[in-house]
């Protein structure tokens, strides 16, 4: 092992597993998967994972960390705090008369983020437990109007009394300040923050014009409150992590992954923990984008099928798509994040027979990891994973690399529960479960592509996650896609950690504006200049040279008053003149027509730029030579190992070759029917399909032309 190795380390803490990846500059990728340790401190699991990585690298943990260029980390701590309601006790300071916005949730709190087929039901929908109870909300007498004028001034002494009253409760652990129109005129919010800092030094405080400077008091308040809600615990955790890895030899403070697909230094993440919520899945899409670039794929549909959900994100022209609106536990807020859509469809999805129609339904109920599929030994309901075991797609003795033994008899018994009422054999029922589940997955992909004006045939489908490569043949076949990439083969189940390791520093800054077509270039340029100045100042304050910061500008556009629309269009660098302004209007027209059809374009409605988003990026350098050490044997591979698999498309047991994924190197191919076993998943290759390795280390499944 040469001393000159430089490691890029990525750590992704999930609900069940903590994944660690180290990539060295030679391109070697090391993986470790270890149970998460949420019950004590998640740092324990991280340290175990780092030890496993070091062992695989043949060095000590200290050596690994000392040789690391950096360690980047994605955490679900923020999401967990919210979902489990274990965050800080937040006191909210809001404009008098509008203090109930957070409770009223625009009337949509009962159904926001709920699956579309569930929203009909009053019985099964409820508003979430309040993040801030009404009793910890304090009304501040002040009012700013839409143009930033002060309609009612804030009396600082009255405000101070209100803050003291709140603090006197004795249970406030963090403060959120969200006043009306503060992003137009932040004077009251700033003074209020000063007052809070004087009255409660050291208190975690979020102010809305900084946390989420967007129009719409409900969503801005949610963002601000969530930031404070997760702030103190996230901050403590990040300190603990930073000192633990620092003590073990990491020279540079860790970077923290955000939902926007980039990392930030610990100090920034501590002030803006909101941006880290949802960072794990974003890591998967960031990893996809990185591998896609190395593989020459500019358009990618990234799919992640895990135990409970199926997530889809897109890479277009090499970049993952961003979205603004996010819903967490039925609370809606605005925060630029990688656009990932999800449905309840995964290995744990439960199959049942609709008693009246006799149809075979799968999901949306999931056995999750507790009790889990019947074959885990604790559950009894038939799940997709049980169907996989019954069919032979998954080897019960080789699950998680053989570390967990599955109970095939339990799976058979469970699937029997749906097979019997349907008059099917247990294998037929299992095949049906896989088909129905795959159809749901394919429908989501179709909704994210064809329904958005994109043709999936222009995309390469990537399949990862524990249950993705097993079922890719089925949902890709349903879509008519010809090729599926299992990114990094063995690494497909730790792709998020890989993406986190590879990510640059990214921060997004936004500002509302109201510039209507025909666009005044000076007005656009003024907003852009202001946001860019803010971005550069912030990155400099975080320790980066201004010269290293690369800025990208995006105009968020819509027809005036189309408040549910957000069409992002990139703005060119350099000066914004008349030509650029006219071009922007033309591009909006073209993009709108492409997305929604020529007939949808409105000739009577004004087009407007309603916000400018600036993405500030600092490249951290990630230049490992992707690919494998030397070409493998190449050519057509065969295997001595065989087992019978009941292939859903064929409806019969077929003797099927079993391969070890590690053997499929660049240029090697296998012909279906085959099962390729990877440490944490398996790739199913039906008859007529082929699988080959490429130079990047991906496995490429080529579907039979049907």
């Amino acid at each position, binding site marked *: 092992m040469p001393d000159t190795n430089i490691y890029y380390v990525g750590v992704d803490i999930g609900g069940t597993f903590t994944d660690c990846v180290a990539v060295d500059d030679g391109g070697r990728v090391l993986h470790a998967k270890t149970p998460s340790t949420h019950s004590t401190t998640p740092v324990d699991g991280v340290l175990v994972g780092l030890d496993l990585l070091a062992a695989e690298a043949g060095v000590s943990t200290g050596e690994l960390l000392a040789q690391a260029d950096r360690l980047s980390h994605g955490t679900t701590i923020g999401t967990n705090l919210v979902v489990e309601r274990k965050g800080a006790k937040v006191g909210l300071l809001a404009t008098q008369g509008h203090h109930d916005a957070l409770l009223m949730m625009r009337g949509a709190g009962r159904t926001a983020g709920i699956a579309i087929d569930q929203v009909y039901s009053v019985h099964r929908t409820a508003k979430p437990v309040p993040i801030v109870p009404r009793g910890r909300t304090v009304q501040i007498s002040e009012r700013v109007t839409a143009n930033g004028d002060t*309609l009612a001034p804030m009396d600082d002494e009255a405000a101070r009394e209100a803050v003291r009253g709140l603090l006197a409760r004795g249970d406030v652990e963090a403060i959120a300040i969200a006043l009306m129109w503060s992003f137009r005129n932040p004077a009251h919010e700033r003074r209020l923050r000063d007052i809070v800092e004087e009255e409660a030094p050291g208190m975690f405080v979020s102010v809305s014009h900084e946390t989420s400077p967007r129009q719409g008091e409900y969503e801005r308040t949610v963002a601000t409150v969530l930031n404070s809600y997760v702030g103190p615990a996230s901050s403590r955790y990040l300190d603990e992590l930073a000192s633990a890895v620092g003590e073990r030899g990491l020279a540079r403070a860790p970077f923290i992954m955000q939902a926007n697909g980039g990392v930030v230094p610990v100090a920034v993440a501590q002030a803006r923990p909101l941006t880290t919520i949802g960072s794990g899945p974003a890591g998967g899409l960031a990893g996809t984008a990185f591998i896609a670039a190395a593989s020459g794929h500019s358009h990618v549909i990234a799919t992640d099928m895990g135990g409970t959900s199926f997530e889809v994100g897109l890479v277009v022209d090499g970049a993952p798509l961003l979205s603004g609106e996010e819903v967490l536990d039925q609370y809606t807020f605005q925060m630029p994040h990688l656009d990932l859509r999800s449905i309840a469809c995964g290995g744990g999805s439960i199959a049942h027979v609709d008693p009246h129609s006799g149809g075979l339904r799968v999901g949306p109920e999931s056995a999750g990891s507790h009790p889990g599929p019947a074959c885990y030994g604790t559950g009894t309901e038939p799940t997709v994973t049980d169907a996989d075991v019954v069919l032979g797609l998954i080897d019960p003795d080789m699950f998680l690399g053989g570390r967990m033994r599955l109970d095939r008899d339990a799976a058979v018994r469970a699937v029997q529960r749906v097979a019997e009422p349907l008059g099917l054999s247990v294998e037929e029922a299992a095949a049906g479960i896989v088909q129905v589940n795959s159809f749901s997955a394919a429908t989501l992909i179709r909704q994210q592509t064809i329904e958005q004006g994109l043709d999936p045939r222009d995309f390469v489908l990537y399949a990862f996650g524990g249950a993705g490569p097993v079922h890719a043949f089925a949902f890709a076949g349903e879509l008519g896609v010809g090729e599926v990439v299992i990114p990094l083969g063995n690494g497909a189940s730790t792709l998020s950690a890989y993406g986190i390791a590879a990510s640059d520093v990214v921060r997004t800054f936004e500002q509302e504006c109201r510039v209507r077509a025909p666009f005044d270039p000076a007005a656009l340029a003024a907003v852009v200049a202001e946001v860019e100045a803010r971005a550069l100042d912030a990155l400099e304050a975080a320790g980066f040279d201004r010269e290293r910061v690369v800025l990208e500008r995006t105009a968020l556009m819509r027809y005036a008053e189309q408040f549910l629309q957000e069409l992002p269009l990139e703005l060119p660098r350099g000066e914004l003149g008349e030509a650029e302004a006219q071009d922007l209007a033309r591009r909006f027209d073209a993009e709108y027509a492409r997305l*929604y059809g020529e007939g949808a374009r409105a000739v009577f409605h004004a087009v407007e730029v309603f916000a400018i988003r600036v993405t500030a990026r600092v490249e951290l350098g990630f230049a490992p030579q992707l690919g494998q050490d030397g070409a493998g044997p190449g050519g057509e591979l065969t295997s001595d190992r065989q087992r019978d698999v009941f292939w859903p498309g064929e409806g019969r047991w077929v003797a099927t070759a079993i391969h070890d994924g590690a053997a499929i190197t660049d240029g090697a191919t296998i012909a279906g029917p085959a099962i390729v076993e990877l440490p944490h998943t398996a790739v199913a290759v039906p008859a007529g399909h082929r699988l080959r390795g490429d130079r990047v280390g991906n496995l490429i499944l080529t579907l039979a032309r049907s």
Partner: protein
Amino acid sequence: MAITDTHTDAPVLPDAHEPGFWDGRLRSYIPGKTLALPENLALHDSTAADVDPVTHEVVRYALLAANFEHSALLQRLCVSPITMLTRDFQTSVLTEVGDLVFLGPNLQYFSNSHSLSIKYILEKRAASIGVNPGDMFLSNDPYVGAPHQPDTALLSPVFIGDELFCWVANTLHYSDVGGSTAGSFCLDAIDTFQEPLSWPPVKLIDGGRIRDDVFELFGRQSRLPGAVEMDMRAAIAGNEATRSKVLALAERYGADTVKAVMRNTMDAAEALFVERLASIPDGTWSQRGYAESAVPGDDAVYTYQINISKQGDRLIVDNHGTDPQAGSINVTYAAFSGAVLAAITQSMTSDLSGAYGGVYRRIEFRPEPGLLNCAEYPAAVSPSGATTTETQLHLAVCVVAKMLSCGDDAARELVIGPCIPHWYCTICGGVDEEGTPWIFPNTNGMMGALGGMPERDGVDAGGHFWIPEGLANNVEDIEAQFPLVILYRKLLDAGADGAGRHRGGLGFVEGAITSGSGASQVALALGDSFAKGVGPFGSNPGTVAPFLVKHGTDVLERLAAGEIPGRVADFPGELRPVEAKVAPFAVGDGDVWEFVFPTAGGFGDPLRREPDAVRADVEERLLDVATAERVYAVLLRDGAVDAAATEDARRAARAARLGGREPGDEVTAPAGAQRVGELLYVVDGRWWCNGADLGAVTANYKDETLVREVRAREIAPEFAVPDYAHEMADRMVFREYLCPVTGYRIDTELSRADQAPLRDIVLAT
């Protein structure tokens, strides 16, 4: 105008009318059991015999998804905020003869609207202008299938070969389709000739070619032709895309298979509904509700009534007891039946996610024409989307709740709370500083409130059961568009309004002033003189929702001094008398107005509310300590329930109800007793309540209870209204029907003072 109802005899089921009686011209269109179809119209009605369960599920899911995607596409493409935010639109997939297969997750009272229009087209157009591949029909005729004129449907037949395979359709609430009032809610219409034109089904697209003559004609009647035409193009695109998906599905799996899945989906829904009816005894349940002023200036109070009878495995719905049609407070059969079907399916089968067609097979309507809720031509109906249709939803969901509350525990759990009886809103408009006209239909009522339920409280600002995903505006989004400042928008305090064993969800109040130097007016406002929302089995009514305006206040000076007003009532100033339905009036500097979106009715007697739930509301600062004691007789000490003091206070409150007599304890009902609602049972053919005999089940138990009656504005201080509303308010009384043993409320009733107690539960004997 109003008739006195002394209707205490057992309702006799009305007869069904002869075919052709419901003609769609004088009377609403109601199709007969078999449709009169021309012989040259080839229907695809064959089905595959054995569809395997996997194919079945794949095809079902694909059809469901196609309908969801139709909805999503419309929402993205439409420019009307009413479509975009309030989800006042609907999509559906229907069989070849127009029976519903899937209804989208949008406005639920469009339930059978498409079905009615399609059946009308098949009966009245197929033989003349023809129903052919590539056609689309447009209709907004309330006497055919539209709830009111802005709700315009586009109906598209789907052919496979030369056989009519199925239909796909959408309805959008178009922003303005003409009529006397901007926005097309014509409160002052005395008949439909002051309203937007009602279009019986006309062919908009003929064999794939858009008919420009019809398209332009439809746009011509609107004040907002650009928006209307844009939305119409979205509607066309939505139908085309969905038709293609259905055809692709039939191509792949076979038309007979897809049709088999449609039929089976309906059969399954029907079977589920029959199963859920099983534990409910045969009988008839009724609910009355009220409107004030048929047109501005009218001072009468009008009665609506909905009756649902269960006979074995089906329901029969009628409207007897309703007043004759009047002014603009009517609906036709389409809105009436649509609202009733929505209340039934959302209560009993919402787990079918819109696959409701099979349920409809078991529900028969036998309305009487010429009444407010099944009006004859040319009655005006255009404002009903904000008024009368919501009233029907409210009545219907209350009737269904009473019916379900006579069934087993599983049936009782299906009860959803009463909804809000009007769509309280304002429309403001004017000209801004730059001379640009503006109009703001305030749809913040989307905030909503769900009523109390048997197992839980209603939901504060919980939306509406009949429009699952509606979204209110942000205040900032309003102020960005219009020269208004919304001074406050906050939850109503919990109080006597909506109080119950499970309280109603809280509504909200919103107060506004103008900003800038333009000219502004309030063009439409709805206000109450008395509460109209009620809740079953002993709850208080929901909030009385007056519309309050004060002219010439010092609001701007107060604001400049840093004072934010709490409510309009806090200001000195001249209170403008605003009746239930008003003519437009100007507003300017110094004027403040507020509208109330009421707290919903609760469920059960407030004195039976869990004291700890009262404590929790106090802790959440939704309710104050004094009100907790006054309304619920719950006493708190240091934030905890004082159990002994509460017990004493509650006993005293019950004694007061009994006229000072010491109340008895609750008595467990004998084995085999049939429970009716909360406290009432049937034992051996007699009404029974805590051991008291309330007469034969063939009579009205209310006659044997202890009855207390107060004026509607004197139920509690929360129900007080301004002086100018007293005359109207005093036409109404509130009655408590009390258990003579315990003093608990068996039920309550908000009634016109001249009406006898309604016999609202009639069980078959």
